[in-house]
């Protein structure tokens, strides 16, 4: 096996992204779909950090973008879970098929 380098990290990023997309397409439960979105965001972070490390290691732009992505992901998860719990209170389910009406 060769020394791990940029292509290997990009492979991990791409594989994690498509695992997340697979989960997003097959799951019908809002919490599991949110978990898939978190995987997709993590794959993007891996790509940014890997590019920063291997191509522009004298700069820190990839690291900063990763930190901002993590902050935005935290805000997104908090709002999404607030909406999910609100949906559960009004519909008694968090299946996406059950949430067809806009206002209850």
């Amino acid at each position, binding site marked *: 096996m060769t020394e791990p380098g940029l292509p290997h990290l990009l492979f991990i990023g791409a594989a*994690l992204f498509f695992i997340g997309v697979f989960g997003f397409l097959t799951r019908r439960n809002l*919490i599991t779909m949110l978990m898939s979105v978190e995987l997709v965001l993590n794959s993007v972070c891996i790509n940014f950090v890997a590019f920063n490390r291997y191509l522009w290691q004298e700069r820190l732009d990839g690291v900063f973008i990763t930190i901002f992505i993590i902050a935005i992901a935290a805000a997104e998860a908090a709002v999404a879970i607030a909406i999910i719990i*609100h949906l559960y209170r009004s519909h008694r389910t968090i299946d996406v098929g059950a949430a067809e009406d806009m206002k209850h």
Partner: protein
Amino acid sequence: MMKGETIIFWLLAALTLGTALLAVTSRQIFRAAIYLLFSLLGVAGIYFWLHYEFVAAVQIVVYAGGIAVLIIFSVFLTQRSGEDLPKPSTGRMLVAGLATLSGLALVMFHVLKHAFPVSILEPSTATVADLGRRMLHTGEGGFALPFEVVSILLLAAMVGCIVIAMRVKNKNL
């Protein structure tokens, strides 16, 4: 003979991708959340492997400590225990699997074809003090504006959560 660094890299990759795959296929939602936690920790390990200790620490604190716990709590609040998720239809699994595998093949084809100008790796010299200085620097290469925008975003998310939670309370009264 493989170097220890290489072995650790492949172990971290296997941990991240294996638990991620289990997280999106597990039929028990609580187990899926725990697998997601391990996958996030694997990503933090990859950041450690790349010598970005601060990003790895932020990943562990925010993702493993915050988001995973939030997801586990929402599982407790919305799921009845002992109930499995319904199995997705075979056709949907097939189409999703085919689409994601072909997408992965396409991306990897282009990644492997492209010659990246990889420079010789020097040990990372980015300390937390460097990051902090750059974060609040307003000139060239500073990130003061995105920092402020993210702080406003977090404030907006906080207000949004409170508004969403309050509306239910009024309805129940």
